[in-house]
């Protein structure tokens, strides 16, 4: 349990510390150090969980099991590598954009605060605290989106704030309804929002209330996941904020929101299991499949018309979140397994891509796709990083995304064969959409006077290496976790 306290406590302490002090140089170093400590704590937690399977639970405020332990580790690791990337990146930005020390202080403090909210949301057992931390994640990042104080960044931040605020408010209403239903069946009312308690008593919850609650929670957390048509904040916020922010937003925050949805769906499925028709029993799954498929399709089409490189990849994030939502909605063991794997590999790949994109934009001095050219000639590391990352995200074998997409497709073919057609079509359109833009950026002729920048590319290659490794062989422990979760969610495993 001490590991959890450390894991959550270090970034909280860091947020306060960096908010109080906040010298430019020391700030980025302290940020890095704290992220490193957080990562160590998360690895320690992984070690504990691999020995004793679960931590907390029952009436404890924290609960760590196979589902969230790997997301916690992912968050901490990506948090660390992104912090590593951010220190030279933000120095460059501060010089180019003329950022004051106060804003750099805000940046570092918010960064730690953001990591804190995500880790808290993942490790908590309390659905109320989960809500609080997701709202907190919005609050800590909204000022980062407007960090550059350009009109468009303020516009993006405002939209992000209002849309996510409204969304999260709907989720709160859903949480209240859940509590309302739970308070009737759970003996100790104070424990009624604890997930373990809810899960244990899920069969007794009133199906009517749970259905309404699920709709509110789906729309609410779905806004944060970036499901179409609730996604509109996502490309704006990703494109206007500083790039390390985009990396953690895309790679981590969306995952946390989806994690919340999965936990809710598990309860809903159990609560509705006693209904008469299959349609009502699988209501949660059907809704998630629908949202997932719509998000996937729309995002894929949006990929083609992008002019801004960060917007391009934020639509790619929507696409992948749609795929995952679809996978969890489908609810077969194989698709659930695929969804879990996809969460991991997408988080790693997307953050790696955003790091490369950040450097690419610094090299070209713009985010406009048309003006970024000849990256491989100017700075081969960045160009290749972007190219390989894009190949991975587009689902080329042997990267891990290919594996998870393949698993998802094969399970779709088993259950709803006709749905495999739009999925396959969408994937190939996404292929085309991404490479149409990326190819000239990486290979084209470089413009006059384009200079390399001070880039740290090892996080990118580290992430891509892990993704490649996961595509070739999934470690025993990880697949065991995935299998445990799959059993927990669907009732049967794949291994």
């Amino acid at each position, binding site marked *: 349990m001490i590991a959890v306290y450390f894991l959550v406590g270090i970034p909280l302490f860091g947020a306060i510390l960096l908010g109080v002090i906040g010298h430019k140089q020391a700030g980025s170093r302290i940020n890095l150090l704290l992220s490193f400590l957080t990562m160590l704590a998360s690895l320690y937690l992984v070690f504990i969980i691999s020995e004793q399977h679960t931590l907390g639970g029952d009436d404890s405020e924290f609960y760590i099991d196979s589902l969230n332990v790997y997301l916690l580790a992912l968050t901490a690791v990506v948090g660390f590598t992104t912090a590593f990337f951010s220190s030279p990146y933000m120095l460059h930005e501060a010089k180019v954009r003329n950022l004051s020390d106060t804003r750099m202080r805000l940046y570092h403090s918010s960064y730690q605060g953001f990591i804190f909210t995500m880790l808290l949301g993942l490790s908590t057992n309390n659905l109320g605290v989960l809500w609080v931390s997701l709202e907190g994640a919005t609050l800590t990042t909204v000022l980062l989106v407007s960090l550059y104080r350009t009109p468009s960044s303020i516009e993006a931040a405002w939209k992000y704030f209002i849309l996510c605020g409204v*969304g999260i408010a709907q989720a709160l209403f859903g949480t209240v309804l859940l509590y309302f239903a739970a308070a009737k069946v759970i003996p100790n009312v104070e424990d009624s929002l604890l997930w373990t308690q809810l899960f244990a008593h899920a069969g007794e919850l009133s199906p009517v209330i749970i259905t309404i609650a699920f709709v509110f929670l789906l729309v609410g957390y779905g806004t944060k996941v970036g499901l179409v*048509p609730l996604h509109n904040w996502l490309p704006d916020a990703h494109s206007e904020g500083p790039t390390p922010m985009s990396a953690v937003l895309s790679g981590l925050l969306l995952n946390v929101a989806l994690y919340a949805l999965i936990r809710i769906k598990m309860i809903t499925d159990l609560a509705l299991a006693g209904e008469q028709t299959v349609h009502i029993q699988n209501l949660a799954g059907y809704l998630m499949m629908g949202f997932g498929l719509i998000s996937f399709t729309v995002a894929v089409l949006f990929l083609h018309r992008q002019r801004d490189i960060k917007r391009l990849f934020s639509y790619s994030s929507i696409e992948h979140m749609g795929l995952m939502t679809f996978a969890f909605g489908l609810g077969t063991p194989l698709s659930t397994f695929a969804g879990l794997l996809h969460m991991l590999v997408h988080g790693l790949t997307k953050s790696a891509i955003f790091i490369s994109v950040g450097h690419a934009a610094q090299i070209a001095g713009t985010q406009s796709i048309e003006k970024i050219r000849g990256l491989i000639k100017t700075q081969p590391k960045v160009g290749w990083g972007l190219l390989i990352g894009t190949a991975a995200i587009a689902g080329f074998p042997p990267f891990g995304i290919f594996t998870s997409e393949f698993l998802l497709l094969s399970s779709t073919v088993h259950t709803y064969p006709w749905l495999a057609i739009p999925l396959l079509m969408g994937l190939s359109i996404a292929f085309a959409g991404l490479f149409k833009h990326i190819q000239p950026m990486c290979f084209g002729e470089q413009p006059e006077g384009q200079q390399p920048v001070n880039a740290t590319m090892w996080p990118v290659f580290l992430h891509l290496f892990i993704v490649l490794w996961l595509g070739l062989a999934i470690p025993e422990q990880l697949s065991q976790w995935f299998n445990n979760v799959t059993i927990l969610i669907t009732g049967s495993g794949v291994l």
Partner: protein
Amino acid sequence: MVSAQFILIALCVVVGLLPTMVVRLLNKIPEQLFGQGLSHAMQHGWLWLTPVSSKTAEYSALLVAVGLLVSLFGWFIVRMIMKPKRKAGHLGRVAAWDCGFGPLSSRMQYTGGSFSMPVRRIFAPLWKLSTEQKLQARNGLPLHAHTQIYREQSDDLSWRIIYNPIIAWINFVTRNIGRIQTGHLRHYLAYSFFTLIVLLWLIS
């Protein structure tokens, strides 16, 4: 430089000669993914590739290769026996037959285009093949021709019938789908609002 290619070629040959070994190595992947693999393929040992069962089909690449070598050797023996009196290694070299039109030049060789001509003719309707032959002659007399121009044009029908419409359709859809990203916050909120209403209506 070339040796790199030879390594790859050699590997191809090895893989072709020992398919069961490769199948055994690759088999782990489908076994992990689907829980079942091609266990039948190797049930008769490493020499035999039996995709389904030995009753249905079997193939031994190594034995075939050995057989090929043996039969080559057999023909070599035949050649030795029937050898003419003159010593081997002194084969006469003559010019290839030219139909009596003088020496052959490299311009008369078959090119890739001419090699594939019959196939292209056969599939002409599929490729929208159009050929144009023009004779340029002095004073307009066909017997005084000095230049012949031959132009061939092919048009991939699949491109026109399948790809272009898909591209046009995707472009059309993406152009129109951009409209949902209006830039107005109030519209976005309206999406969220109506989504909620529709869902609530659906479940009630």
